């Protein structure tokens, strides 16, 4: 596909998955995050470091925006200029939204980031050449670039700590982009087990690291294709459609709280958030 071809057919390339020409048959991994349950405690983020061999970059590199937290908690305040934030803060766990029409995919010059049949936005480290176009094009800013050779030169893992590295996940070095994978190594293992028994992965059989740690069960994760999965039921109940860039329910008043972030950018994220609720009477 030449660049001119790409540009001419831009809208088509971008819309490939949601319009259904490559439907998800067996799996479509998706999430629902309940912001009313999320307390902002950061357990998910640390669990992600532990599971996915994420480098600790240290103070100086953090200052340069080089932190690698695939799962980060964003904290927002109200903007009404009151003296005190007396309705608390707003916490938002933010990680790769595994967009169906992912803006990062179309700009990768080497095809290192692709859509998988399971509806994941894959990042293939050995193919990545570090152009960082994907990161520039990501509206959620959830792609992290290895500016340094952490395993070898930056002492992110002294010898003792190397022993903690998860052998199911590649250790990335300098010049590679990385991001949340929905713990693809766990998905692969679960699919493998299910396949041995000639069936599909059942709801609850596989958990992402963040979901497993979350003390308030704010994160649910599962197969959107599976009508029995909790995540499917949540999306359905909240009337959020994966392949829409504006939800019909938003046209009229509803008492539902499901939404996707920056939906109007037509990236079709696979993560639905549930709005935080605050008691109005106190």
């Amino acid at each position: 596909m030449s660049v001119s071809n790409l540009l001419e057919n831009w809208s088509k390339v971008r819309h490939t998955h949601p319009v259904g020409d490559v439907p998800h048959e067996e799996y479509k991994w998706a999430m629902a995050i309940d912001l009313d349950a999320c307390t902002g405690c950061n357990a998910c983020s640390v669990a992600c470091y532990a599971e996915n061999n994420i480098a600790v970059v240290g103070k100086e590199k953090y200052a340069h925006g080089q932190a690698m937290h695939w799962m980060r908690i964003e904290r927002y305040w109200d903007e009404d200029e009151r003296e005190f934030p007396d309705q608390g803060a707003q916490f938002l766990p933010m990680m790769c939204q595994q967009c169906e029409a992912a803006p990062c995919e179309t700009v990768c010059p080497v095809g290192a980031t692709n859509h998988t049949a399971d509806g994941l936005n894959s990042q293939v480290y050995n193919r990545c050449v570090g152009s960082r176009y994907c990161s520039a094009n990501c509206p959620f800013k959830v792609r992290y670039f290895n500016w340094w050779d952490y395993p070898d030169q930056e002492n992110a893992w002294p010898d003792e700590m190397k022993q903690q590295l998860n052998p199911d996940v590649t250790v990335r070095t300098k010049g590679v982009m990385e991001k949340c994978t929905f713990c693809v190594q766990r998905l692969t293992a679960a699919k493998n087990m299910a396949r041995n028994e000639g069936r599909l992965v059942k709801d609850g059989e596989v958990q992402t690291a963040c979901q497993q740690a979350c003390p308030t069960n704010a994160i649910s994760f599962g197969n959107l294709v599976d009508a029995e999965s909790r995540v499917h039921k949540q999306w359905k109940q909240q009337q959020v459609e994966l392949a829409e860039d504006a939800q019909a329910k938003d046209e009229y008043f509803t008492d539902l709280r499901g939404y996707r972030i920056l939906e109007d950018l037509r990236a079709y994220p696979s993560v639905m958030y549930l709005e935080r609720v605050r008691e109005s009477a106190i």
Partner: protein
Amino acid sequence: MIENNFNRRDFLKVLGWGGAAVTLSGCGFTSVQDGTETVVSYVEPTEYALPGIGVYFNSTCAQCDAGCSITGRVREGRALKLEGNAASSINRGKMCGLGQAGVQAHYNPDRLREPMFKGQPVAWDKALGLIDEKVKTLKGDDVAFLTGGMSGHVKVLFKNYMDALGSKNHYVYEAVSPSVVRAANKKAYGVEAPRLRLDKAKAVVSFGADFLGAWVSPVHFSQQYAQFRKGNRPEGRGVLVQIEPKMTLTGANADRWIPLRPGTDGVLALGIIHALAKNGLSVPADVAAAVKDYAPERVSQETGVSVEQIGKLAALLKTHTPSLVLAGDAAEGYQHGSQNAAAIALLNRVLGNVGKTIEAPANVPFPQIAAQGGNRAALQALNGKLASGKVQMLFVHGANPVYTAPLSLKFKENLNKATFKVVFAHYMDETALQADLVLPLDSALEDWATAVPEYLPEGAQLNVQQPLMEKLHAGTRGTGDILLALLKQRRANEYGKFDDFYAYLRNAVVSIKGALGGGGKDEDTFWAETLSEGLVKLPGSGGNLSSKASAAGLHFPAVVEDAAYPLRLIPSVTANMRDGRNANQPWLQESPDPLTTIVWDSWVEIHPKTAAKLGIVEGDIVEVASKSGSIKAQAYLFPGIHPDAVSVPLGYGHEAMGRYAKGVGANAFAMLDAVSDQETGELAMNETRVKIGKTGQRIIVIKEEGVAGGKQAGKKIAARLASDKVDLSKEV
């Protein structure tokens, strides 16, 4: 030009292998390699360990005292990842970030590897021999023990060793602990740690109890909180009000966060009772008499909480029953901390919460293994004894008092009056540096132990801590093994028959298997099941709870201002750093503080209004000075703090403890004034008055928050709905 001729496939072809080489050079093989790596192979296999497949072992988290049960994933003999153990009634399969970082305590590159005597490595036999020689020359009263909170069989061995030496000087110390509230609970309910049922409460009013962050048993309370917030539970979605001068993580999650003038918690609690009585709630006569002076106008003036807000609080508590009122760190940290806690207990009594959302905890059938929670008064008591020169020999375990003691106590100076100091330590921390003899410990993932948590959410539970893998360093030993060796020196008859602590522990547990619910099983089966589960749920009766919170003697002195030190210091206990014992775990240093989003440093939280008055902007290095000491740290303008207070997180500013902790931030413990709660003698953490001044330096604050400072720029990113705009009942 490029547009016409550039062919993406060709581009890929060229880059295929090159990309690979760039990707992974140095951290692994990037191409097929024959005969370079050695294959994992075993001499004798264990049936369940297959290369390439993780094995899971149950154990107990030792990162804090909550006693969560964990499941460690082990592959090819290495512990890789910790998950929660679903069988535990404490954490039900969940974990916090602190717990996750437990593997970094284990693999920490700065762990001690061999015993040290006066700074020189020494063999274990020699080290234990030195202790033997020394204790022989001393009377029991000359020897003292300073330990952290403890329970289980390690506690039993400590006690037995103290008995063997004839020492009664056991100081159980935790720098951060709810010790005043514990005493107040004992008075009001007859128990120190009653069960708190957030899940049954329709409203929770918390006076500075950060139960989602770092208070008592955060993972357990977080789960209860999730239940409490469910719109589809019979009680409906619960309402949380947090009242505290500095916003904690729990405050950030409240429906209403109320900034209270520091220390006026008790006044507000009585004011709420007053308002409730006015609203028609029947209040016992003695209580009514005690609160008659606490009219909303006066309370409002003292606490800074508006009359309208007090009315709303009373209305909420009247309609939302049962409710639950909590007293936390922010309420107890004053000279009149006990009074604050007593007033809050009284509010619970008036609301009829006792027995509904405050329940009796389970009895632990064996008091000798029950938890002994640490407090701050223990350090003050030991300090006095050290100062008078009455302690010749001191054992320290599970505490770092040289770091956590306020400078005003002169603890370090007094410590050195003891002639022989033995410190059990994982790292060369500030206290180990002062020791004559340092005994290096196995990590929690290598060692055997049992634990009974102090806060028991359901029935009593005996947690087993077992090794997940082989020891990393040959020169470390388990606490239990060291104590057993020391006991063998004194009571060879009694302990000689045990080869090691494992043998002791197995014997001790299986010998009471009947009482542990394993009466019908043979010893081997019972033991194997215990290890497999990682815990034993103890059968037994629930305890008793009394409701005797009294209005008698409640008196709150007027707040006296100090013109030279106009601000109140609130040393904050954060979920990441707590009392600083985990500061050398890099995941925790790099995990942003949830509220300020700052990493790898201390900060001083100042309300923007106060900062404007003082001409301070974000990033100014300010000096916070009390009568007892001062620190320098970056200023962070934080709207969630009372304008009369500044807050500095605890746990930073280590002078030792390895590469990840040393020199990161400033130690707020050091500058605390030695003021105590009048009833319990506990160090009053929030009583320190400070002044704040600019040093002239300014830096860029390193934090996760972007330049927008937590604003969403009109986009729907983190969205919020009012509760009357949403129907939660149909949610799945």
